[in-house]
């Protein structure tokens, strides 16, 4: 096999799509060989393309023609919004050391990753450092950790926690995600605030949450672990979706093999996953948002179940058991036949949420809908009349501020919700037939 021998233009779209062709055949050699500037080192890359510069006038001449700067000078079109100038792209940059930060206090202990509050030694900025769990070394860098970083980097949004960089410690197993520090998480806040959120405040929070999740979905990212402890809130009334530890890309052009089932913390887990569905999509996040909406109204989690069966029966109780109408595909789910349904009964939403307007109730029920196909999307929910009826959403600046537990101003453990079955998910590669 010869080293660098390539025939131009041999890989055709159709051949590529079907298989990987190794032998590259008979194609004719190109006759035309441009001679771009002696040796086309990319010297032509200019760090800052200026608005006007000399453009070669012989550009239409034969390709072997001279490419030296011509005499005519004219206005170069400014870049459109679709193609930012090259200089807007970051350079290729290695991870900095975690010692660029001074550790202040541990924000959260106990759960999976350890999160610290820290100070950037250069800028003085206060940040949050999340240490990734990398013990599981059998398959190299864990795919879950990759997804978390990838999702944070590709879902930048006003209401998604900002990732600043990824830094490394002394050994290969120490990797930290550096994020903007956000004072509160919604779970702690709900447990410690004296009065529940007002309707106008809930609307603002829901709009923010929905627009963040719409953004993720537009970027082909499923969050898969939305819950109040993964929603951060700053002192300016702004929510930031965090913890993309279970996130992943979906809708890849070619099938990716069943998505893993073990996702979403029990209390926020949608019925299709509880019933063993292997294909699911954006609708899982919308169910969780429904649970969060209810939690904001109730000031405590909606479904505080001990196990999956209890979880299902609580859902059946609130929504009424699923019917052929409300969920046509129910019986084709893996557990659809094994679980015996209670006798038909109406839903209990009105009893459970006596003070919610009918528009509010309609939104809640559209989110907490059995059939994922019928469940409202983030896009649609943002247009829901609930958000335009009185009282209108409160401006974030008018939210009061609260003492920050994360900054160590006050520390209290209100209630403990279970966490997503992440350990099991980490073994994703081992579960399948992929382990070496």
């Amino acid at each position, binding site marked *: *096999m010869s*080293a*660098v021998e*390539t025939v*131009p*233009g*041999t*890989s055709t*779209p159709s051949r590529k*799509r079907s298989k*990987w*062709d190794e032998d590259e055949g008979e194609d004719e050699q*190109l006759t*035309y*060989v*441009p001679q*771009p*500037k002696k040796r*086309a*080192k*990319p*010297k*032509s*890359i200019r*760090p800052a393309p200026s608005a006007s510069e000399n*453009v*070669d006038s012989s*550009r*239409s001449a034969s*390709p072997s023609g001279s490419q030296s700067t011509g005499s005519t000078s004219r206005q170069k*079109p400014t*870049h459109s919004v679709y*193609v*930012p100038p*090259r200089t*807007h*792209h*970051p*350079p*290729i*940059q*290695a*991870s900095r050391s975690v010692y660029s930060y001074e550790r202040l206090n541990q924000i959260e202990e106990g759960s999976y990753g350890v999160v610290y509050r820290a100070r950037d030694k250069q800028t003085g900025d206060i940040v949050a450092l999340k240490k990734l769990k990398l013990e599981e070394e059998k398959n*190299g*860098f864990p*795919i879950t950790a*990759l997804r978390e970083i*990838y999702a944070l*980097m*590709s879902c*930048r949004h006003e209401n998604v926690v900002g990732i600043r*960089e*990824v830094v*490394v410690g002394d050994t*290969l197993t120490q990797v930290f995600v550096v994020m903007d520090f956000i004072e509160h998480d919604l779970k702690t806040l709900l447990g410690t605030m004296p009065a529940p959120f007002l309707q106008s405040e809930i609307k603002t929070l829901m709009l923010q949450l929905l627009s963040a999740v719409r953004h993720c979905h537009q*970027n082909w990212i499923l969050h898969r672990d939305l819950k109040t402890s993964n929603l951060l809130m700053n002192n300016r009334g702004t929510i930031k979706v965090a913890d993309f530890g279970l996130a*992943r890309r979906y809708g*890849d052009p070619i099938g990716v093999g069943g998505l893993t089932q073990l996702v979403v913390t029990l209390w926020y887990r949608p019925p299709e996953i509880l019933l063993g569905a292997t294909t699911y999509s954006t609708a899982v996040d919308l169910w969780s948002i429904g649970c969060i909406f209810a939690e904001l109204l109730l000031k405590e989690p909606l479904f505080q179940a001990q196990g999956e069966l209890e979880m299902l029966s609580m859902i059946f109780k609130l929504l009424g058991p699923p019917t052929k109408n409300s969920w046509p595909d129910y019986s084709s789910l893996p557990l659809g036949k094994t679980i015996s349904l209670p006798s038909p009964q109406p839903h209990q939403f009105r009893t459970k949420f006596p003070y919610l307007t009918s528009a509010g109730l309609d939104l809640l029920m559209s989110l907490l809908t059995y059939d994922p196909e019928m469940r409202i999307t983030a896009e649609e929910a943002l247009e829901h009349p609930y958000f335009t009826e009185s009282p209108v959403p409160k401006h974030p600046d008018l939210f009061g501020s609260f003492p920050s537990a994360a900054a160590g101003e006050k520390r209290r453990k209100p209630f403990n919700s279970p966490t997503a079955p992440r350990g099991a998910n980490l073994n994703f*590669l081992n579960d399948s037939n*992929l382990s070496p």
Partner: protein
Amino acid sequence: MATLYPLASLAQIENTPSKQDGIPDDLEEDLRAYGCKLIHQAGILLKQKQVAVAAAQVLFQRFWFVTSMKQFGVGDIGMGALYLASKLEECPIRMRDLINVYDLLLQRASHALVGKSVDMFQYHPMSYFGNTFYDMKDALVVAEMQILKRLGFNVHVVLPYGTLINYLRVLELTNREDVCTKAWGYLNDAHQTPVYALYQVPTIVCAAILLATRQLQIPLPSEPPACWWELFDADWEDVWSVGGSIMRLYRKRTEEEKNRVVGLVNKKDVRSWLEENAPQAGSDSTSAMSVT
């Protein structure tokens, strides 16, 4: 907005780490291309999705703007890049399969190196309990981690194929299957060059269209003020430069040049090559560079 994919800075381009270590430009270029070729061949043997292979090649090319080939071999890094990109594209591959495939490719290449015919080649699979397997496994894990670290975990890759289709549509060339095929092929071949780590996707796609249409002698509006590439925000000079990088892949190589890269897949081979060759070969270009 998503994080923009990183591109090498001017300083990184002009003075690559390998160059600083005395590796001549043309050798670095050939080793990059050879490493990409190995990734491509491994992808075929593993029946891996094309997106994963293409992404691996982009990561591989970026890596050499922050690391010298004296420090890591193109074989190991190529293997690590393919392993990593397969996870990123949600089509992970087994470590063991990847290692086997690379072992086979490298054995086959060195077999050809000593001048024996390909028919005579017989692959000797390694033992899973032998040292080779464990050494390669270690190298793979290290390579993956080093790629992540040295790229700052910014492993976002944007592939050009969708853009090509759009541009051909705008240029009303979608009915010319030969143009589509040729341009697509150039985009694939460009993955053996550093251009995806240097230029934005629109520029590279324009270069592929330029090469394809010139080759097929299809005229496109190229007189100011109506230059077709400006529709896509590309600069002529950049498009031209990318075209040149792609075309250089096809230049004739001497047997010696071809064999040279096969013998330099590992960093230790690169090191001994440097000891023998560096003073003469590297001096000219490095001194020129150190001025900048």
